[in-house]
């Protein structure tokens, strides 16, 4: 653990996919930091590279066609990109775990849930069969699965979606990870169940001092859970701030657009505003600022130079922004 409380720091991470169409720059220079014990929310539209970033961190980019081509992923003082596959296997599920969007398919259908949790525990903690089973029951109890002694021998198809996501969380938590990557953990669930799952993650986090990297496209979820927020667009972070600062004073035209498109943030009686256009293809990003094709403030400068991610002067600490017109954006 580095002394400054940083658990995870991404520096210029680049992950490209190669296909016959060419090179898709899915993640193209991503920087963000996750402090120990905190939650970092990563928001952005589908295809902006938020999931690919997370998969790059845990080393699960399918290769071929994908490849991490540059940057550094600092985790507890080590650059994860330099570790061997074997070293990564020891970290995965143990120090870094991950839960996914689709609890319906993320569990192996032909093994009992107990079996799958026990596998994780035995992989990393070297427990005996009986101890591992006890641990699995504890974990199921921890995620509030009723009657865990009986449920442990059930198969995934016997559980509801919310229950399965709880099982996924139990599995992810079974080795007390330092970092939990949650990739859209509530997207596939009912709204009431969503709240329960978020509450559960928050509750577990406060008990264990674990950090959470929460990937979502739902700003409401971010508002409820995140300490810091990274807004991603077209493979880059365009704005990074504390949740408080971001919600109080979003500065990037894209972030502002995201808020405008939500009913919660629009003035009463006002129409919701969609961001015009679509996310550019990762094969052909526009020159300069990648958002300029959809941006109301776009100028010639935006097409010429790509705005760097720099601190915003008149905002809270650590608020960074990649826009040539930080002042003008305030007037939007």
């Amino acid at each position, binding site marked *: 653990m580095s002394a400054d409380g940083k658990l995870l720091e991404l520096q210029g991470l680049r992950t490209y996919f190669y296909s016959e169409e060419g090179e898709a720059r899915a993640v193209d220079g991503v920087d963000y930091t996750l402090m120990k014990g905190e939650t970092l929310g990563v928001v952005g539209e589908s295809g902006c590279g938020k999931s690919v970033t997370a998969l790059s961190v845990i080393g699960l980019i399918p290769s071929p066609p994908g490849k991490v081509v540059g940057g550094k992923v600092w985790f507890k003082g080590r650059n994860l990109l330099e570790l061997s596959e074997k070293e990564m296997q020891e970290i995965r599920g143990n120090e870094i775990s991950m839960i996914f969007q689709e609890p319906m398919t993320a569990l192996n*259908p032909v093994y009992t849930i107990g079996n799958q949790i026990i596998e994780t525990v035995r992989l990393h903690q070297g427990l005996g069969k009986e101890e591992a089973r006890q641990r699995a029951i504890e974990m199921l109890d921890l995620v509030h699965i009723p009657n865990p002694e009986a449920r442990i021998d059930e198969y995934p198809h016997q559980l509801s979606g919310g229950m399965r996501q709880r099982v996924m969380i139990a599995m992810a938590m079974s080795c007390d990870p330092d970092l939990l990557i949650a990739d859209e953990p509530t997207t596939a669930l009912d709204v009431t169940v969503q709240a329960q799952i978020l509450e559960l993650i928050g509750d577990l986090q406060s008990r264990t001092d674990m950090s959470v990297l929460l990937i979502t496209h739902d700003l409401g979820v971010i508002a409820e859970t995140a300490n810091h927020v990274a807004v991603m667009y077209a493979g880059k972070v365009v704005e990074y701030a504390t949740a408080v600062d971001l919600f109080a004073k979003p500065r990037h035209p894209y972030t502002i657009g995201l808020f405008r498109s939500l009913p919660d943030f629009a003035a009463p009686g006002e129409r919701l505003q969609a961001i015009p256009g679509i996310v550019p293809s990762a094969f052909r990003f526009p020159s300069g600022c990648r958002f300029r094709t959809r941006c109301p403030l776009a100028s010639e400068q935006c097409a010429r130079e790509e705005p760097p991610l720099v601190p915003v002067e008149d905002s809270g600490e650590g608020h960074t922004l990649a826009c040539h017109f930080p002042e003008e954006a305030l007037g939007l």
Partner: protein
Amino acid sequence: MWTYILRRLLYSIPVYLGIVLLLMACLRVNDPVAGFLGKGASEEAYQAKKESMGLDRPFVVQYFDFLRQLVTFEFIKVPDEEVTASEDGGAAVLRSRGIESWSQEGRTVGQILRESIIPSISITVPALCFTLLISIVIALLSAYYRGRLPDKLMMVSAVLGMSISFLVYIIFGQYWAAYLLNQKLELEFFAVQGYEPGAANWAHYCLLPVLISTIVAMGYDTRFYRAVMVEESGRDYIITARAKGSTKRKIMFVHMLKNAMIPIITRVMSTLPFLVMGSILLEMYFNIPGMGRALLDSIFSNDFPVTQMLVAVFAGIFLVSVILTDVFYALVDPRVRLS
């Protein structure tokens, strides 16, 4: 589980009755006795033959009599089993001795079945085991190295292997592996053709056909299994398994293989009836007296009782294997509930 099996068996009874009805009707479209005896046969001989098989009786009576023969397993009886049933002679004695073949004097259907099933199975079963084992391993390796050189090499050879005709393998196998090897090296390892019973003779007579059959089937199977594996390797639970730190080998053999077994079992089970029936081509070319040849011979020689009984037996085996497939499904896939 057992109630499920029992229920499935009960359900298949009407199906089987229908099959038998159809079979008997089809075989009677052209008069089987006239076909066997030919045009020059006398009226007396014709009538005698007809009566000996009970073909002069009404169809319904014949139908139930045939079912009786199936249910009481009379079809596997052989003549040297002593007659104890009845003293009043005639038909009763004849029937309790089993069903006599027309073309092979003095032999019964039971004898033909018993004698031909061993040669058939001693080729088909080892061939299935070899094929299954080798092609699953190749498919796993191929899926593991997907898109890379080993995968491409294996798939090219699989396509090559399956593109060559069965007959080419048989002819070249017989010529090179059996004939030339015997000539040049004076090695009597493979027989060019023929069959003798006994385990000691197995390699000599059966290994070559088994190998040929394996090579031919491997191309298709490897490609199918690889497709299954590749599909499974793209599933979400594989990423979950990787995310929890499983090793690649464990993911393949523990997580993927059990899921892949579901389609694999379907394919293997669908070949089960043909295990008993044997490979007609191989049996013809290697002169092996198996079931496939027995059936073919009976058809060519108008041996009505043998044809009728063999087809009925195969149909039964087919039905049983369908039920077995479902039972195996339930064993592998917990989502299938047999209740």
